[in-house]
C-alpha cells in the first residue's frame, strides 16, 4: 500500500513487444528525469502489460489526462517531463497520427485502432501493473471468485457458464460449460484443472499478452472453474519461451497465496486450490490436450486417443478440465456482469469477443479484441488500418497453421466459429495473417505445411507420412517441377489426413493447402502448367528481367548491381540481360533511371 497519492500516473507498456522496442531503457530514463526535476514523489511510473498496439511501441499513457504517446524513445523523455509533466503541454509530435487522415489523436479511446474494439479478456491489459495484485483488486478483481465461492453452488456456476454460450477460445470452440459439466460429473477423490498456455501458432501472442498483462484474471478464472468441477489442484502449462509471462505469473501466484486467494479455505468456504506452473519445452503438439497432459506427467509430449476424454481420465488418470488462457480470462466477466450482458455481445452461436493477433502486410500490427460477428473487413481495414504501401489485399489467413486462407470475396464475412468453418478455415487460437498481392499462395501453403510437418510428433501414420508427402509435392510445385495430377493428389492426401489423424494437429494440418487450392487454384495451375509464379515469389519460376532497348540509355547502372553478371553491353548503347543467367532477383529494376527494366 502506498502512503502518498500521486498526481499523475505514467503508464509504460512493458509487454514483450514494447520491451523489444526499448521500453525498459525508456523507463530508466524517465526515472532519472523525474528525479532530476524533483517530481518523483508526485508522478508514479507504472509498468503495464500489452496495449495491443505493438506496431507503435514503446507506448506511454499519461494520466489523469489519458494522453497516448507512441514510439517514445529515451531521447524524448526530457521533453515529456519538462513540457507535459511539469507544464501541462502535450508533446504533439509524439501523438498518434491516423495513417489515412494524418490527424493527431491525443486520447487512445479515439484512435480507430481502439474505437472498434471491445475488451473483455484484455480489459485490464495496459491499464494496470500486472505485478501489483492491489491494482487488479482495485478494479474489482477476485470479486467473481469471492461471489462464486461464498454464494453459489458448483452446479449453479456450471449452469451460468453454459448459459453464457462461452466456447473454447483455444481454437476448438467446444462449449466451455459443457466441458465443465463433464468434469464435474466424474466421480473421483481427486480432480485437476489445467490452463493451456502452450501458444504455438507462428505470429500468435494473445495468450502471452494476457498472462503478461493481467495474470490475476487467469488465476481468478481458474479458481471459479476449479470450484465448479471440484478440483483442488491446477497447472498452468506455459511455454518456456515466454519468460516474462512466467515471471509475472509466478509473482501473481505468490501474491494470491499471500492474500489467501490461493491455498486452503479460500474465503472461509472450505475450498482449497493450489496452482503450479509447468514450463513446456515448446513442442507445437503439446497444445493438444492429451499431449499436454503427457508432458506434465514427464512423458514424451504425444497425444493419446480420445475417448477416454480428460474429463473422465485426464492428468495422472484423474478427471481433468482443460481450457485455454483466453477462455479463463472471460470467466470473471461473465460472473460479475451476468449472462445476459455477455450473450448480448457477439452472434447467436458465438457469444462474447475474440482476441486476434493481427500480423502480416498490415499497417497496424497488434493485438485486437472484437465482438464475434465483426467482419474481416472491419478488422483488417478499420482497426488494422489497411495494407501498407498502397498494396492490394489478396488473402487473410486465420487459425494459424491449422487454418485456411480466405480471398477478397470473403471480406464481408462476420467472424465467428461456424462461419469460418463453413468457409474452409477456422477460428483457431486467433492468429490473423494478412497477405497482399506480393504473396504467392502456394508458397504460403508450403510455409505452413512445412511448420506442421516438422512439428508432427510422428505417432500416427497419416500425419507423419501424409504431411511429409504433401510437403514434397508442394516443394516440387514451387521448384517448377509440378506435374499433372498434383493438385488432385494434394486434395486426396489432405482429405485422408484430416479424417484419419489421431489429434487436432494432423486433422487440421492440410487446411492451408486445401483452402488455397479452393480459392487460388489458378495459382497452383500457373505453377504447374505454365511454370510461372504469378506473384513472382518462387524464384525458380520467376521470369527473367528484360531491358527495353529503345528506352535504355546505356548507363550501366543495372550491370553494376547484378549479382550474377547476367547484364552486359557497351556504355551509351542498349544493355541486355541473359535470361539463362538471370535469377530474377529484381536488384536491377530500381537502379534504372529511365524505368527500362521489367520482369518478362
Amino acid at each position: 500500500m502506498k502512503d502518498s497519492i500521486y498526481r499523475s500516473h505514467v503508464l509504460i507498456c512493458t509487454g514483450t513487444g514494447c520491451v523489444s522496442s526499448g521500453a525498459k531503457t525508456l523507463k530508466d530514463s524517465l526515472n532519472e528525469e523525474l528525479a532530476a526535476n524533483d517530481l518523483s514523489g508526485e508522478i508514479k511510473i507504472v509498468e503495464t502489460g500489452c496495449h495491443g498496439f505493438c506496431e507503435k511501441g514503446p507506448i506511454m499513457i499519461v494520466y489523469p489526462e489519458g494522453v497516448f504517446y507512441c514510439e517514445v524513445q529515451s531521447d524524448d523523455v526530457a521533453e515529456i517531463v519538462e513540457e507535459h509533466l511539469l507544464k501541462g503541454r502535450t508533446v504533439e509530435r509524439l501523438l498518434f497520427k491516423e495513417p489515412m487522415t494524418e490527424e493527431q489523436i491525443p486520447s487512445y479511446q479515439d484512435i480507430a485502432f481502439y474505437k472498434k474494439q471491445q475488451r473483455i479478456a484484455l480489459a485490464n491489459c495496459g491499464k494496470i501493473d500486472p505485478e501489483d495484485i492491489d491494482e487488479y483488486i482495485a478494479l474489482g478483481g477476485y470479486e467473481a471468485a469471492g461471489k462464486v465461492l461464498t454464494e453459489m453452488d458448483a452446479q449453479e456456476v456450471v449452469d451460468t457458464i453454459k448459459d453464457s454460450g462461452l466456447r473454447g477460445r483455444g481454437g476448438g470452440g467446444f462449449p466451455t460449460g459443457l466441458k465443465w459439466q463433464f468434469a464435474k460429473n466424474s466421480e473421483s477423490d481427486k480432480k485437476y484443472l489445467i490452463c493451456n498456455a502452450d501458444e504455438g501458432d507462428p505470429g500468435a501472442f494473445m495468450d502471452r499478452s494476457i498472462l503478461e498483462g493481467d495474470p490475476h484474471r487467469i488465476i481468478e478464472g481458474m479458481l471459479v472453474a476449479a470450484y465448479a468441477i471440484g478440483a483442488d489442484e491446477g497447472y498452468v502449462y506455459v511455454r518456456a519461451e515466454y519468460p516474462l509471462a512466467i515471471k509475472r505469473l509466478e509473482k501473481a501466484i505468490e501474491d494470491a497465496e499471500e492474500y489467501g486467494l490461493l491455498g486452503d479455505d479460500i474465503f472461509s468456504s472450505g475450498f482449497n486450490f493450489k496452482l503450479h506452473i509447468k514450463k513446456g519445452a515448446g513442442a507445437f503438439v503439446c497444445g493438444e490436450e492429451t499431449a499436454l497432459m503427457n508432458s506434465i506427467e514427464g512423458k514424451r509430449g504425444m497425444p493419446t486417443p480420445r475417448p477416454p476424454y480428460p474429463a473422465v481420465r485426464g492428468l495422472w488418470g484423474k478427471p481433468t478440465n482443460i481450457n485455454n488462457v483466453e477462455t479463463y480470462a472471460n470467466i470473471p466477466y461473465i460472473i460479475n456482469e451476468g449472462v445476459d450482458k455477455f450473450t448480448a455481445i457477439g452472434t447467436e452461436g458465438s457469444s462474447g469477443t475474440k482476441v486476434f493477433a493481427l500480423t502480416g502486410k498490415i499497417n497496424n500490427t497488434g493485438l485486437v479484441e472484437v465482438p464475434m460477428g465483426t467482419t474481416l473487413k472491419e478488422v483488417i481495414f478499420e482497426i488494422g488500418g489497411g495494407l501498407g504501401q498502397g498494396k492490394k489485399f489478396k488473402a487473410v489467413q486465420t487459425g494459424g497453421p491449422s487454418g485456411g486462407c480466405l480471398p477478397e470475396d470473403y471480406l464481408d464475412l462476420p467472424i465467428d466459429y461456424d462461419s469460418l468453418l463453413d468457409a474452409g478455415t477456422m477460428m483457431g487460437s486467433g492468429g490473423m495473417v494478412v497477405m497482399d498481392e506480393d504473396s504467392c499462395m502456394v508458397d504460403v501453403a508450403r510455409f505452413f505445411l512445412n511448420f506442421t510437418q516438422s512439428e508432427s510428433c510422428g505417432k500416427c501414420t497419416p500425419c507423419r507420412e501424409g504431411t511429409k508427402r504433401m510437403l514434397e509435392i508442394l516443394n516440387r510445385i514451387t521448384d517448377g517441377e509440378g506435374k499433372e495430377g498434383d493438385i488432385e493428389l494434394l486434395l486426396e492426401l489432405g482429405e485422408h489426413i484430416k479424417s484419419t489423424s489421431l489429434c487436432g494437429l494432423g486433422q487440421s494440418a492440410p487446411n492451408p493447402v486445401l483452402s488455397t487450392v479452393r480459392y487460388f487454384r489458378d495459382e497452383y495451375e500457373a505453377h504447374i502448367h505454365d511454370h510461372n509464379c504469378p506473384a513472382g515469389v518462387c524464384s525458380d519460376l520467376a521470369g527473367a528481367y528484360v531491358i527495353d532497348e529503345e528506352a535504355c540509355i546505356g548507363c550501366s547502372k543495372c550491370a553494376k548491381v547484378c549479382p550474377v553478371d547476367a547484364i552486359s553491353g557497351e556504355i551509351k548503347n542498349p544493355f541486355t540481360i541473359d535470361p539463362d543467367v538471370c535469377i530474377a532477383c529484381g536488384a536491377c529494376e530500381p537502379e534504372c533511371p529511365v524505368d527500362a527494366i521489367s520482369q518478362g
Partner: protein
Amino acid sequence: MKSLAELKELRNKVQKEMKKRDQGTKAEIIVGMGTCGIAAGARDILKAVLAEIEKRDLDVRVTQTGCIGMCEKEPLIDVKLPGKKRITYGNLSEADVQKIITEHVVNGNIVTDLVIARHN
C-alpha cells in the same frame, strides 16, 4: 482472504490510487505551469493543491496547463466542477489554495474575491 466483505474492504482501500486513471467526469483543478507560472511559484501552489486534496481525501483530477497570457496574475489555478463554469483564480498564495478547495471544490461556493475570470 476470509470473506467477500474483506475483499471489498481492501478494494476500497486500494481504489483511491487507481482513480487517477479514471477518465470519467469529476472535479478538475488546473494549475498554470507555464514558465511565468513556475517563476511566480506555481510549483508550490501545485504541491499545496495536492497536499490539500490528499488531506481531505477528495476525488479530484489535477492537471497543469501552459501560459494563458495572464502572466501578471500568476500563479493561477482553474477550478472546473462537473456541469459548472470554469473559474480562474489568480495571484494566489498557498493559503488561498486551501480556501478555494474548502469553499469552492468541496462546498461549491466560488471564492469571489480571488476570481479573475469565468469561462463558458
